[in-house]
């Protein structure tokens, strides 16, 4: 998809003023984090499991070529095809060719962030193939012509009332008020679409090198219907999704569900290996894996390589105080929140994404909850360093920083300057605080600025003890 992350600041302001969005976000805020906490408190070995998970990912990334090669061999041995796609363009072309070969006019889709990287829905529509989203959240935002604002709960920005209106407009039935009725209605409308689809497109939570299997986790069972019913199953995955063995996938699955939704395991966890085999009751006749790189191999081995450990659980955004007030759309590209801030500049460029690593207080909650212990604040800081080196930050900000650093490196001058500055502020700060200060309007527009108590501590200390 086309990024618009450079617009972050304005988009965030709009989001803060959007009362419907704020209503949705306020209920989102506590839910996921509380459930995660309860789930990990019930699992004493959670920290050990994290260590194991990290070791698996680190090992795999260090031998990525080997495990991808083995995965591809096993897929082919099972009768499937692997398409190596360096760029989104390669990915789109490969998908279109498969769909055309099989004469598919509609394709059901389960949730896939890789599809968002490819801008797949628009591309398919432009080529006269109708994509049908089957994940409830994705279905909602497809009706609304929007993009996911969260990597697990794509429609988390929508209120129940908005969904009700949307369904009424499209389904032309009656206004529903209960979420369970809306789910039932969506299912009723989707059921015939599954059966009629010429192809099913899914993502993959893991690719297993040992067996050539893909692992899919959902809570709705929609990915199962998407991959089993149509004649063709197309899997979209980025290269870092591969793990060596089924055992490894099981370890990561235990981390994934707890970190993501606080479940011990996803409601549906399905393994698929190749197309329908002789003796199988059902399954697709053709099985294709679109293996997308889209910049990952360039990240490998570099200073941002730790982002590739991500298992897309969304814990970082679920616990991010910035994400939880501005929502996912403000980030302007596929992956919002802290993981997006660390990953996006690699893939869409720092010029475009420069706000994202800055839009963090470095409160550290993201790193604390990341099952893969990705040092997200560190990675965001590295981007800020590149931004500083490339002089991409506003000149006024850099100038202020340089002036401050000049003083901070010269203690005698600093002492004099602060003595004078604080003295001046003290004289005018008789009320104890300032309602407005020059150069600090960002602060004083909404907050008073506490005035200094008096002379600096060092001055007072010298007087008292010196």
């Amino acid at each position, binding site marked *: 998809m086309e990024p618009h992350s450079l617009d972050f600041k304005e988009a965030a302001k709009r989001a803060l003023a959007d009362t419907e969005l704020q209503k949705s976000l306020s209920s989102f805020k506590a839910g996921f984090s509380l459930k995660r906490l309860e789930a990990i408190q019930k699992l004493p070995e959670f920290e050990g499991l994290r260590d194991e998970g990290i070791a698996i990912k680190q090992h795999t990334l260090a031998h990525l070529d080997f495990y991808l090669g083995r995965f591809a061999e096993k897929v082919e041995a099972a009768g499937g095809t692997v398409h190596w796609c360096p760029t989104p363009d390669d990915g789109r072309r490969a998908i279109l060719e498969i769909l055309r070969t099989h004469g598919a006019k509609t394709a059901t889709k389960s949730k896939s962030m890789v599809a968002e990287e490819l801008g797949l829905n628009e591309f398919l529509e432009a080529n006269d193939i109708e994509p049908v989203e089957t994940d409830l959240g994705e279905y909602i935002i497809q009706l609304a012509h929007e993009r996911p604002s969260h990597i697990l709960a794509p429609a988390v920005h929508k209120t129940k009332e908005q969904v009700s209106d949307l369904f009424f407009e499209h389904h032309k039935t009656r206004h529903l008020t209960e979420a369970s009725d809306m789910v039932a209605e969506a299912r009723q409308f989707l059921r015939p679409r599954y059966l009629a689809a010429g192809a099913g497109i899914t993502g993959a939570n893991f690719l297993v090198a040992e067996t050539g299997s893909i692992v899919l986790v959902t809570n709705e069972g929609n990915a199962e219907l998407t991959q089993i019913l149509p004649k063709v199953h197309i899997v979209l995955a980025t290269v870092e999704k591969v793990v060596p063995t089924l055992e490894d996938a099981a370890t990561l699955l235990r981390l994934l569900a707890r970190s993501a939704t606080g479940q011990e395991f996803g409601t549906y966890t399905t393994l698929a290996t190749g197309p329908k085999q002789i003796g199988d009751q059902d399954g697709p006749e053709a099985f294709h894996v679109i293996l997308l790189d889209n910049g990952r191999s360039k990240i490998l081995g570099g200073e941002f390589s730790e982002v590739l450990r991500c298992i897309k659980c969304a814990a970082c955004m679920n616990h991010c105080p910035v994400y939880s007030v501005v929502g996912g759309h403000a980030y302007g590209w596929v992956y919002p929140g802290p993981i997006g801030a660390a990953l996006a500049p690699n893939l869409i460029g720092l010029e475009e994404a420069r706000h994202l690593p800055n839009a963090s*207080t470095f409160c550290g909650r993201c790193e604390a909850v990341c099952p893969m212990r990705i040092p997200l604040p560190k990675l965001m800081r590295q981007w800020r360093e590149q931004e500083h080196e490339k002089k991409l930050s506003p000149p006024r900000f850099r100038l202020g920083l340089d002036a401050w650093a000049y003083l901070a490196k010269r203690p005698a001058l600093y002492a004099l300057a602060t003595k004078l500055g604080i003295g001046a502020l003290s004289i005018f700060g008789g009320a*104890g605080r300032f309602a407005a200060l020059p150069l600090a309007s960002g602060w004083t527009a909404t907050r008073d600025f506490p005035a200094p108590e008096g002379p600096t501590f060092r001055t007072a200390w010298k007087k008292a003890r010196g």
Partner: protein
Amino acid sequence: MTEKKPRVGLFVTCLVDLFRPSVGFAAVTLIERAGCTVEVPEAQTCCGQPAYNSGARQHTKDIARQVIALFEPFDYVVAPSGSCGGMIKAHYPDLFADEPAWHKRAENLAAKTHELISFLVDVRGMKSVDAHFDGAVTYHDSCSGLRELKVHDQPRQLLASVTGLALKELPGAHICCGFGGTFCIKYPEISTRMVSDKTADISATGAGTVLAGDLGCLMNMAGRLSREGRPIKARHVAEVLAGMGDRPAIGEPSVSGSPQQRRGAVAPAKSR
């Protein structure tokens, strides 16, 4: 035979130095009560965190070298801030990963650097304080202290020993207040929303005072509380633990209002 008292270098932090000297004096009082001598190296400026988090690595390293050289002679370095303490303890060694000699010096300094309250409790074994404070307080866990330095139980333990004080736990005490250093200036709307959520939570506890261990967060919360017209005071936890909780709170006018007279009000008597 008396053991020689450990020498503590007080890293007063730039915000305390400039805006809230009371916290510096409270820190000195507490460290002395913990059986140490305190010195305040005059040439200190800042830990370099504003430069570090702005991506200005060279500035950061220059400032860090200065801090290392100034403070390495002490037995301990103590800062009344989890943020600045965390900068020295958790980040200085990383800064010099490619300079072995400085890396070693940074690691040595990191090992003996502590946030004030955790120093009192974890290093000096302080279990209680001799202080009185009238009323209910709530406590906000500043992010760096909490997550980088594991400061959580220590302030609560000492606050429990303050007579007259009732601690009301703050729901979401571990969630950022929206200060974030330069963040609050770069993204003021987001920061304002975060601090407004925080002040609403503080207000809901019914406590008359909010305490924390970092002046940046405190100035942010105090500034928002007063702008919203909420009659809630903000103080550094050290002030209350040192028995200085009766001074004007952050952002409050001093008793006299005149800077000349205020000067006298800040420093405790020399003979104390």
